[in-house]
């Protein structure tokens, strides 16, 4: 149920974000979704791609520091209050969210998909599954994105 996410360290200055994106582009690797966290000095670029191993390799060859983290893809009902319902399940299971961001592909009117980073993804997957939260496998996620 887990999805592998790549994280990259970036210095916070113009042009820094373009470099890894170009490296992936040149290698023909499609970015399925991403999020950028930043402070005044530095940023962390988080990416989900299908071929994460190759992406890690080309990025490292280009000089990036890359970290692989497991995140969960969670389907959230696409209606007002949908996210609150899901978060309630998190709360009840005592799971705290480190950070989350949206997956680009969605089935309008049915679900929006969130990428969620949790302390212990395995335990969280179990607890959330039991609470009826819909988790998405990487295969299905990539299929939805047409990758």
């Amino acid at each position, binding site marked *: 149920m887990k999805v592998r996410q790549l*994280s990259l360290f970036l210095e916070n200055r113009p042009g820094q974000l373009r470099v890894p994106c170009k490296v992936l582009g040149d290698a023909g690797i499609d970015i399925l979704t991403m999020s950028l966290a930043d*402070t005044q000095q530095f940023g*962390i670029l*988080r990416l989900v791609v299908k071929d994460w191993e190759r992406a890690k390799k080309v990025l*490292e060859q280009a000089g*990036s520091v890359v*970290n692989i983290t497991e995140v969960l893809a969670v389907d959230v009902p696409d209606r007002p209050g949908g996210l609150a319902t899901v978060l309630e399940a998190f709360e009840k299971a005592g799971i705290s969210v480190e950070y989350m961001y949206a997956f680009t592909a969605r089935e309008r009117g049915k679900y929006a998909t969130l990428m969620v*980073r949790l302390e212990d993804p395995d335990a969280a997957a179990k607890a959330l599954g039991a609470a009826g939260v819909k988790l998405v496998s990487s295969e299905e996620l990539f299929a939805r994105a047409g990758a």
Partner: protein
Amino acid sequence: MTTQRNDAPGGFHPASAPDFLPRAQLERLQLDRLQATVRRAHERVAHFRKRMEERGVRPEDVRSLPDLARLPFTVKTDLRDTYPFGLFASPMEEIVRLHASSGTTGKPIVVAYTEADLEVWTSVMVRTFAACGLHQGDVVQNAYGYGLFTGGLGAHYGAEALGATVIPISGGNTERQLMVLQDFGVTAICCTPSYFVHLVERANEAKIGFGRLKVGVFGAEPWSESMRAHIQAESGIKAYDIYGLSEIIGPGVGIECHRQEGLHLFEDHFYPEIVDPKTGEVLPAGAEGELVLTTLSKQAMPMIRYRTRDITSIDPEPCACGRTLRRIRRIGRRSDDMFIIRGVNVFPSQVETALLRVEGTLPHYQIVLTREKGLDEMEVQVEVTAEFFSDQIRGLESLQARLESAIEHTLGIRVKVHLVEPRTLARSEGKAKRVVDKRSI
């Protein structure tokens, strides 16, 4: 009297015999050679003659080793001012080699060797490698730069004369260095310590080991005891500190033995004094100060009381290895490497120790000094490595805070740590540039 020659491992090399001379015999040899050197310099080098006349001293005034203190110092600017050949004591017909320092500003410093000088240089390098336990059959990867820099050729001829197999790979091209290290069965490597840290880092990234490598002979820049511990733990080799400078001969002025308790100086060729860097006064045995060296056998370019700017002390106690050559404490700093910030004397080695303490690994770093509104600021730029990179902002912020507090704790002043991307700081294929001073005074 039999001298104990406890040179484990590998046994004793005949070239190392002078390392074990009884002190009295060594000192007689030193005085003879010193007197000849002073006479030669006075007779043949206008600069030395003039300086001695200004002080009212004659070569005959040097009747004992301590009399050396009556002679004037030679400083780096003397070599610049007499560029290129002003300090030569031999005609060009007798000079067989020239080397030059890689001058970052202005003219370089030129040094010269007669055939006899090269023989001395090679002999001290043989003794250097022998002290590190190397001998015939060893395979030496010489990653010091070949060319005008003395490191490359100095190590090359010494290792060859020892009977080892030399790979003259020179500096740079990390991928090839690692490949050769593996494929050629290299047992010893010569390079700067910071470059070896870089090799270790890249080897770890590529998940390759160090093959048969057992010895590293590292020098040409100051490094710390904690950096040695790091290198030895990461690579499993024994890391020896070598000391030398072009003005005196190049590498081969001093070397650690297997005890790793200070660097033996090849005192039969180089005479050491420790002076107060401010007053120039000779300090008593054991005191810390600036190392001043006088060559005892150089022909082409004798050097009288050369101010090295290296801060150390001389240990007069005999070494357990049996060598009678006195030892200097490892040079962790140079008097000109030191900088003063908000009244505090800071040496880059202190920052290094603090960085190592936090993550147990030595990242590449650079110290940047700036002055804002009359107040000095110190920033330490640290490259993020895969080991301590986190996907969470707070992970990196906490790393930054821990680094800042470790450095502040060591130096007693507030510093800013700035995390930068890997391989953005100037890489040390040669000497690492640790301090960038942007303060305009």
